[in-house]
């Protein structure tokens, strides 16, 4: 693959597979038009590359290519989906036949889906996509990361650093004659460190990236900050005390702790769960679900962010959707199917892991807008509580609304001051009321470094989160110190 071929998806797929937009239209028109509510073909070509350093040298390198086509037909609430990893006219027609078989058994109920509206954004055109950057430069960076992490503290005994790069070329054709392509670069530098002292071991992990060129890691010595942050986390935890157990005031630091929003409300506001009435937020638009200090948006249009997209995986340009405005629930995240069935507009949130998966309503970059408080005052206001600044993963039970997210760096707060670091602990809450207890919101909104991956129905997609420093008056902390 050459860089010039990457620029135009239409040319890319016609040159490589002899599949042109007009051929895709023929498949859609011949097999599906007039018999379904909506149908589309999604073509994808993807290259992944990963270099892994451990024990001071890069001994693992891998490169993966995948390609395929997904054909979807919808009638009423029914979806037929078929995919093939052999992109050819014959296979597209066969997939269309399989997809239609399901939709055929239903009666098409509503008018055809509206034509894709609006132009795609241009959020991440790169002069040199990270997948094309010289391997030698990536190796060099990993060696520097290794040295920096080890130099940060003599107790660092292991460094595992990796650079992953990806390039995805897509072309989407819908039954209404709308064809749109996208070229999506993505890269991530990750640094895991193991610290050891007196037989105790701890792990630190830090990293970042986005739809950015390789030089992103070199700017402002970002790579060095990732390495030293990882080492700092690992060594800090060597001295951590048991986390408290019970309900207390929690202060979340800015940035990645925004995973709170992703779990507490984001998933619960995805269109599919609400159309089916299985979300704890179903039917609550217009109701107060958070304190008046809280405004939360999902924005897929921020340039170069990991969660951003020019168009979603159904060809709808991404947008900025207000989910909660001053505490009031305002909107859902929609794909085409669920917006059609709910009589709402698509929001550009129809996403899929790959051609092998049908789209679902998913988040992009989800964050809380900045408030008025000085972050220092937020901490000072707490007599006894927990200050959590870094998190691992989280999960939510959509129906009961219960969600968790696990702190990987947290401290006790005593009399308004940051106290001893505590061991990792899971925080648990109830989505529809956790944010009603937000009593202070800092002016320091920060987006995360570009590390998030979200899983739903077995499909993983890159996402972003963001948060200013906030105070939550009561949240259950799952430590072991009773």
């Amino acid at each position: 693959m050459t860089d010039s071929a990457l620029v135009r998806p239409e040319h890319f797929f016609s040159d490589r597979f002899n599949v042109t937009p007009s051929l895709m239209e023929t498949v859609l028109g011949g097999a599906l038009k007039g018999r379904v509510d909506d149908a589309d073909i999604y073509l994808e070509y993807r290259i992944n590359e990963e270099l892994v350093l451990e024990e001071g040298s890069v001994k693992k390198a891998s490169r993966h290519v995948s390609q395929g086509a997904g054909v979807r037909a919808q009638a009423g609430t029914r979806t037929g989906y078929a995919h093939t990893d052999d992109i050819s006219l014959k296979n597209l027609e066969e997939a269309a036949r399989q997809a239609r078989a399901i939709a055929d058994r239903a009666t098409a109920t509503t008018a055809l889906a509206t034509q894709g509206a609006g132009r795609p954004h241009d959020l991440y055109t790169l002069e040199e996509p990270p997948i094309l950057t010289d391997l030698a430069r990536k190796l060099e960076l990993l060696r520097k990361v290794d040295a920096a992490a080890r130099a940060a503290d003599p107790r660092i005994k292991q460094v595992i650093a990796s650079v992953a790069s990806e390039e995805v070329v897509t072309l989407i054709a819908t039954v209404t004659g709308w064809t749109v392509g996208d070229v999506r670069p993505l890269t991530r530098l990750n640094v895991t460190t193991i610290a050891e002292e007196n037989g105790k071991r701890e792990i630190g992990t830090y990293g970042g990236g986005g739809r950015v060129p390789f030089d992103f890691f070199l700017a402002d010595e970002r790579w060095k900050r990732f390495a030293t942050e990882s080492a700092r986390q690992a060594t800090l935890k060597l001295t951590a005390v048991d986390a408290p157990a019970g309900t207390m005031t929690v202060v979340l630091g800015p940035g990645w702790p925004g995973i709170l929003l992703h779990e507490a409300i984001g998933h619960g506001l995805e269109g599919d769960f609400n159309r089916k009435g299985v979300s704890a937020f179903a039917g609550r638009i217009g109701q107060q679900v958070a304190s008046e200090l809280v405004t939360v948006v999902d924005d897929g249009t921020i340039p170069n962010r990991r969660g951003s997209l020019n168009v979603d995986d159904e060809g709808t340009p991404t947008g900025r959707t207000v989910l909660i405005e001053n505490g009031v629930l305002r909107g859902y995240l929609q794909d085409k199917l669920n917006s059609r069935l709910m009589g709402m507009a698509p929001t550009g949130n129809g996403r899929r892991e790959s051609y092998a998966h049908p789209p679902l309503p998913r988040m992009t970059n989800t964050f809380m807008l900045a408030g008025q408080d000085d972050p220092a005052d937020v901490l000072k206001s707490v007599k006894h509580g927990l200050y959590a600044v870094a998190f691992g993963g989280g999960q939510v039970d959509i129906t009961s609304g219960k969600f968790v997210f696990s702190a990987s760096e947290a401290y006790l707060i005593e009399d308004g001051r940051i106290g001893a670091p505590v061991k990792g602990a899971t925080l648990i809450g109830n989505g529809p009321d956790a944010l009603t207890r937000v009593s202070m919101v800092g002016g320091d909104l920060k987006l995360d470094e570009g590390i998030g991956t979200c899983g739903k129905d077995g499909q993983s997609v890159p996402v972003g989160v963001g948060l200013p420093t906030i105070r939550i008056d009561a949240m259950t902390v799952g430590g072991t110190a009773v």
Partner: protein
Amino acid sequence: MSADLLVSVLKRAVARGATAADGFLIEEKHFSGMVRLGQVDTVSHADDRRLSLRVFVGQASAAASTSDLSRDSLEHVVDEATALARITAPDQFAGLPDPGALIEGLPDLDLSDPGGHDLSPEEKLALAQRAEAAALAEHAEITNSEGAEFFDRQARYAYATSHGFAREYATSSFGITASPVASRNGDMQRDSWYSTARKRARLEDPETIGRTAARRAVRRLGGRKVKTTEVPVVFDPENAASLLRALAGAASGPSLYRRASFLLDRLGTRVAAPSVTLIDDGTLPGALGSRPFDGEGLATRRTALVQDGVLQSYLLDTYSARKLGMTSTHHAVRDGSGVSVSTTNLMLQPGTASPRELIASVKNGFYVTELIGFGVNGVTGDYSRGAAGLWIENGELAYPVEEVTVAGNLLAMFAAVEGIGNDLVLRDRTVSPTLLIGRMVVAGN
């Protein structure tokens, strides 16, 4: 035929300068049919292939894979992998297994059910419909559904090395899942139940799956938080199995040589109560986790990971074994970036008490039926996860509990195993009987 394709790819790698290479090819056909509230919701058909290749140039190596099996693409992948292997650092432990260690024959583990796939999409969907209908009919408080699904999958696995070894085998799998939603006075709870098997005839009948799912959802209604406390915790079999997976993760070679495991340097020492015996057995005929050979062509076997509370074995592939000065335990699997390790059929050996007797032995405690989140630290064993279930009062299940966490440390938890149920059923790859752990912290109000 799959193996032939692999062999030709490996020959090309050698022609391009590789000193050794191995490859794995997976071809699969997958059908999934989902119904919701009696109507067909989503049907998907898939036809996938993936060839993964590992190339050695001396002691340096690289991995590559592709879903495009055209001749051009395969040649390109071989060339790229060989080029990548030239830029990686040599590693004295890298290499293929000793050819003499590779599997000799090919045991028939009865992993395939060709006739089982001979159902029309309508007949497959009807099985899901029956499961959902049974869930909806089971209880008046089942008011909604996230749907029910039937899937089946036919796969063919081939493994070959540049030394001329080539073997392949086929598998089938089938599954039915139901996810009903119960509600009462605005409280809404979802739960699910499933059955999965290598033979379609061995699936639980759809009505049993639906009814079990419904009962699990209804019993969660009206859940409350409890006061923060330290009590005995009983894990139901599904959730006890997740503790076994966490232990196996810490016993895996890559975690160990990276010194990122709480089981480091603990081989031959006590890591659990004497009642704990944990077996991994990849040779069980017809079982979901069985395979004739691992991702490096080594015959699978029965391994005692923990015997009477003592850690007896790690889970190793060839590379991690050599790094640790040991030999492979034949647990290699191929993944996106090369080779890693995984268990086969992992089973905690049952005890004699019935689940009811274990619960009856607890005066005040927590019966866990649901865990969420990722709060397990494999380096330290520190454990903290969200939980839901039923509170135990005077040996009886008293009321549902939600929005709490259970926390401890895995080593301390396994040391504190006070009871193991007699209810082991090999219904998935990792299975456990009901498990009673003497003390854990439950955080709530």
